[in-house]
């Protein structure tokens, strides 16, 4: 959920709560004001009536609909009670209903005799008060709420735009990209700071990653010469005529391991170079002659395991990439297919549309399928392989923007490169 939607929701809930409490408060205040006002009127009226009643020339008016009070004689010696204010209902013959009145019950003396005086006055009715409250307040809140929502949307469009742009950029950011993280400048301080922070952070990561890659390449490169020196020393040692079995055996082992180190190093160097985009130029590389030219290198495997090799490659298919990458990709795919094969099995290379499929018979992989493309992942029974072949395939596919997938079903390994 968007931040602003969520904020607006919280505001609206808060508004509703305030609305509820505020309605009650307003109602109470209003009611109190009304009562105070009417009670004051009643009290004043009582004073007025007391004065009027004790004027000698006046008779006692009773039952007159135009008067708002009633007098009822009390027995002599009645003890006066304090004034009593109360709500009452009075039947209004005009509109045939009871209306809400306020009544004051008090005692007065008229010519020395005690009387009970009851004064009534119509007052603002509760329902009217409630109506007033429940119409005006919600209207106000509705206006406020709609206003808030609209403002939020508008703000979203204007103020938050830089933020969303940054988010978009961040989503696209790759640590191995060649350009810096860039967004348009914004005048809002917080966003500007965020932008600065993001730019610094991504730039640092990018640089670190590049240094790391560069380091691997440099380290591999620097190792080549010492390895060459060691290897040449051993080769010279092996030429000694007096060499016997006890010396030859460890020398052979040292040589084998040095060569292995050399190959490992070269493979890592190659991976770094591919990742560092050193094979940038792309030309159409014809696939058919490339694959066919590699087959003689595998003739011993083909013969030994009686493998069937099936090539379905249209003569005009090309791979649009660097010639070196095309060669390395196919070497590794074919090597993989031949090395992990079974007797009387097959290797099938199929090019159709925008996909290159290499299938081969073989045992089920003992490495989880999703880890096959990781570096140094290899089947435990293949001790001699470096475990970098498929990592190289994946890297080549990545730099060219191709997809590479692996499947194993019914004893058949299938590697598919989609170069759409």
């Amino acid at each position, binding site marked *: 959920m968007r931040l602003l939607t969520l904020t607006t929701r919280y505001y609206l809930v808060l508004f509703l709560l305030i609305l509820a409490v505020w309605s009650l408060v307003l109602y109470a205040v209003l009611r109190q004001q009304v009562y105070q006002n009417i009670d004051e009127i009643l009290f004043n009226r009582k004073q007025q009536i007391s004065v009027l009643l004790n004027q000698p020339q006046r008779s006692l008016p009773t039952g007159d609909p135009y008067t708002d009070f009633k007098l009822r004689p009390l027995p002599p010696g009645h003890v006066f009670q304090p004034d009593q204010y109360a709500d009452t209902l009075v039947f209004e013959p005009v509109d045939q209903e009871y209306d809400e009145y306020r009544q004051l019950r008090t005692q007065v003396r008229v010519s020395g005799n005690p009387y009970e005086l009851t004064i009534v006055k119509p007052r603002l009715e509760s329902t009217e008060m409630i109506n007033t409250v429940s119409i005006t307040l919600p209207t106000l809140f509705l206006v406020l709420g709609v206003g808030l929502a609209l403002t939020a949307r508008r703000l979203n469009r204007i103020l938050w735009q830089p933020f969303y742009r940054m988010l978009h950029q961040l989503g696209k950011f790759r640590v191995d990209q060649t350009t810096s993280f860039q967004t348009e400048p914004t005048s809002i301080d917080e966003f500007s700071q965020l932008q600065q922070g993001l730019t610094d952070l991504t730039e640092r990561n990018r640089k670190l990653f590049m240094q790391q890659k560069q380091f691997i390449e440099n380290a591999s490169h620097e190792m080549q*010469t010492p390895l060459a*020196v060691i290897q040449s020393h051993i*080769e010279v040692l092996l030429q000694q005529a007096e060499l016997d079995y006890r010396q030859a055996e460890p020398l052979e082992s040292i040589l084998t391991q040095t060569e292995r180190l050399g190959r490992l190093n070269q493979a890592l160097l190659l991976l770094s170079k591919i990742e560092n985009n050193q094979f940038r130029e792309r030309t159409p590389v014809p696939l058919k002659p490339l694959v066919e030219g590699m087959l003689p290198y595998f003739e011993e*495997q083909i013969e030994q395991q009686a493998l069937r090799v099936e090539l379905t490659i249209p003569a005009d298919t090309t791979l649009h990439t660097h010639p070196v990458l095309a060669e390395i990709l196919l070497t590794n795919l074919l090597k993989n297919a031949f090395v992990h094969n079974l007797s009387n099995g097959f290797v099938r290379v199929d090019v159709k549309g925008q996909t290159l499929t290499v299938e081969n018979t073989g045992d089920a992989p003992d490495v989880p399928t999703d880890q096959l493309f990781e570096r140094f992942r290899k089947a435990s029974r293949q001790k001699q392989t470096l475990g970098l072949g498929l990592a190289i395939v994946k890297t080549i596919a990545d730099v060219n923007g191709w997809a590479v997938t692996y499947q194993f079903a019914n004893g058949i390994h299938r590697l598919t490169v989609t170069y759409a």
Partner: protein
Amino acid sequence: MKLLIVEDEEPLLNNMLGYLTGEQFISEGVTTYVAALERIHLYEYDCLLLDITLPDGNGLRLLEAYKQLRKKAGIIIISAKNSLDDRIAGLDLGADDYLTKPFHLSELNARIKAVIRRKAFNTHDFIDAGNVRVDMTQRRVWVDQQAITLTRKELDILLHLLANQERVVTKTSLAEHLWGDHIDQADSFNFLFAHIKNLKKKLLEAGATPEIRNIYGVGYQLLVNA
């Protein structure tokens, strides 16, 4: 026949010189660009081995300078940089071959001989060893004037061993020579054993005097005058 090796890593240079001693050419070694430049101006060589990264210059510049002298030695570039750019630049500038460090001395020896042979423009390019004769252009083999049939890889093995006569050629060196990066080591050794076995058998049956000896599982040695 004279050979100049330009390589700044002294132990490696010494091993190269040591390995090549006793071949039909005289090898000299220098470790700097300046020394190399002086030598190529003063003397004539049949083959130059140039390391690309030198402390005081670049092997490719040396190659350019040499080409401007219009001299005709074969040139092999040696580099720790397995970079395609260097390889292409080197070959474009007129280098005859390219070797990447680390390399096998036996491979280097074979490449030098191949370059020198190509430069010699012999119409009939034969290699003789004992009673074995190989026609390099036609890729045919005779034992005592009797033609024998070798497979392509058997012949490649024989040629590699002939280029390194009397030397111990390691099995990895042979395997790399035959298959490069294309197959796995364990497999390539097995296949190599099979090819060597067949080659030995064919040579033996034809009564060839050169003998291929197995050296403690490390490699092979072709003894011509056993």
